C-alpha cells in the first residue's frame, strides 16, 4: 500500500513541478534533453577512480535546480530510495580491488575510490535526470521524442501509459485495501489471492482499454496520432545546449579541482 501511495505522490509532485514557470521551464524540451544527455555521457566517461576530478559536474544540477526553483526535498527523497543499490554495488569494490592509494599520508584500498566515484556519478546522474523531468514534464518529453523522429504510435502509447498510471494506481490501492480490510492481516498478499486480485484488475484494465478505444474512435481516431505543431527551438535553446555542452566538455578535459588546488596550495610547480 505505502508503495502505491508513494508512487502516486511522486508522480504528481514531479508533474506539478514541471507545470511551474521559470527560465529553465521555458527552454525547449529538446534542448533540456540534449543538454542532460551530453552531461550524463561525459560524466560517466570518467574512469572508475575519478572522484575529485568529476566534482565540477556539480555545477550543472545546482544551476538547473536554482534557476528553475526546484525544491531539494523531492530530489533528496528519490535519491534516498535509489542510493542503497548504488552504494551496495559500490561497497563491494574495496573487497575486490587490491590496489592501494595514499591519501594525506594514509594508505587505503583503491576500491574506496571506486566506491566514491560510483556514488558521485550515481548521485549526479540521478539528480540531473530528475531535474530534467521536473523542469520538462512528460508532455515535453513526448514532444522531444517526436522531434527526434520517434514514431507517433510509440509516443501515443507511452503517453497513454503515463496518463493511466494514476488511474490504475488508485485502482490497485482500492483493491489491495479491500483485501486488507477483509483479511485483517499483513500488507502482503497471500498466494491464494494473487490470481483473483491481479486478474480482476487486469480484466477491468482490458475492458477500459476497449472503452478508451471507442472514445478515441468517436472523436475521429484512425490510428494516426495528431499532435499540434510545437515551437521550434530558438537561439536561446541552442545557446543553452552549447553552453552546457562546452562547459561539461571543458570540465571533463581539464581537472579544475586539481588546478584550483595547485593554485591555492602552491603545489605541483
Amino acid at each position, binding site marked *: 500500500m505505502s508503495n502505491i501511495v508513494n508512487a502516486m505522490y511522486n508522480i*504528481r509532485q514531479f*508533474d*506539478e513541478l514541471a*507545470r511551474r514557470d521559470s527560465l529553465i521551464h521555458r527552454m525547449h524540451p529538446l534542448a533540456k534533453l540534449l543538454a542532460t544527455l551530453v552531461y550524463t555521457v561525459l560524466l560517466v566517461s570518467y574512469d572508475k577512480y575519478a572522484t575529485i576530478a568529476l566534482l565540477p559536474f556539480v555545477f550543472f544540477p545546482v544551476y538547473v535546480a536554482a534557476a528553475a526553483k526546484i525544491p531539494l526535498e523531492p530530489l533528496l527523497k528519490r535519491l534516498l530510495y535509489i542510493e542503497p543499490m548504488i552504494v551496495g554495488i559500490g561497497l563491494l569494490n574495496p573487497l575486490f580491488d587490491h590496489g592501494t592509494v595514499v591519501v594525506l599520508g594514509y594508505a587505503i584500498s583503491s576500491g574506496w575510490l571506486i566506491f566514491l566515484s560510483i556514488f558521485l556519478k550515481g548521485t549526479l546522474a540521478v539528480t540531473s535526470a530528475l531535474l530534467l523531468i521536473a523542469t520538462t514534464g*512528460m*508532455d515535453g518529453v*513526448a514532444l522531444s521524442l517526436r522531434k527526434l523522429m520517434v514514431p507517433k504510435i510509440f509516443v501515443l502509447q507511452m*503517453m*497513454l501509459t*503515463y*496518463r*493511466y498510471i*494514476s*488511474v490504475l494506481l488508485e485502482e490497485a490501492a482500492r483493491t489491495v485495501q479491500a483485501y486488507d480490510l477483509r483479511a485483517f492481516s499483513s500488507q502482503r498478499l497471500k498466494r491464494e489471492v494473487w490470481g483473483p486480485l491481479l486478474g480482476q484488475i487486469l480484466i477491468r484494465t482490458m475492458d*477500459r482499454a476497449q*472503452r*478508451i478505444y*471507442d*472514445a*478515441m*474512435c*468517436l*472523436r*475521429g*481516431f*484512425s490510428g*494516426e496520432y*495528431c*499532435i*499540434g*505543431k510545437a515551437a521550434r527551438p530558438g537561439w536561446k535553446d541552442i545557446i543553452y545546449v552549447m553552453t552546457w555542452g562546452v562547459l561539461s566538455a571543458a570540465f571533463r578535459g581539464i581537472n579544475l579541482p586539481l588546478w584550483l588546488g595547485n593554485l591555492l596550495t602552491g603545489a605541483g610547480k
Partner: protein
Amino acid sequence: MSHHITEGKDLFYAYPDGHQAVNGISFRIHHGESVGIIGANGAGKSTLLMLLTGILMPANGEVIIGEVRLNKDNMAMIRQRLGMVFQNPDDQLFMTTVHDDVAFGPRNLKIDEPQVEQRVVSALEQVGILHLKDRAPFHLSAGEKRAAAIASVLSLMPDILILDEPTSSLDPKSRRRLMKILGGFEHTKIITSHDLDMVLDICQRVIVMKDGQAIADGPAKGVLTNKVLMEEAGLEMPLSLQGCPVCGGEKT
C-alpha cells in the same frame, strides 16, 4: 431543421455471451429535441447509446442519422456529427492535458492548428473551465473531469449530443452547474440517467426502457408522474414530484 433526425428502427443487440441487451426498440428524435432515456440498472440504456454511435452494430434493425443509414463505410462521416460523453470521464480524457484532450477531435479532422486552438478555447469557455486548460486529468475533481469530457466533444461541434449518466458522482453544486451547461445547448440531446430530477429539468421527452425494450415514450412530465409505469420499470418518481413526506401533501 428536420434533417438532423436520429432514428432507431427495430433495433436488436445481443452481447457475445448471448445476453439480449437491446430487444426491439424504435424511436425517432427530431432536431433540437432533448430526450431522456431512463430505466433500471441493466435495462440496456448504455447499450442503446453504443448502437446509436456505431460502437456496436445492431444484429437487426437500423440506425439512421440525418436520413443516412449508419454503416461501416459512412461511420467516420456520421460520427463527426455525434458527440458522446461517456459514463466514466476517465475513459474519455485519455490525453495528458485538458487542452490536448479537447484538441484531439478537431486535430483528427485535420483542421488548421489556429482554428483548433479557437475551438478548444470556445469549448472550454462554454463549460467554464478555461482556466484548467493546461492541467492534467489526474489533477481534476470529478465535476471538473465531467466538464472537460463534455468540452472534448463540444470542440467537434456536434449536431447531436449524447450523454451517458452525466450527473453520476457529482456533488449538488457541480450537478447544478452541469445542468445549466446542458440547458444552454440548442443541440439535439440524448441523455441517459438515474437522476430523474435532472431529466425532468432538461428533457422534454422521456423514453422508459425495461429489459431492452421501450415501455413508454412521451412528454417528460406525463411519463415521470405515471406512478404505475415508473414502478413497472423499477424506478421511482423524481423527488420533486413525490409527495412531501412531512406535510403529506401532493405536489403538482
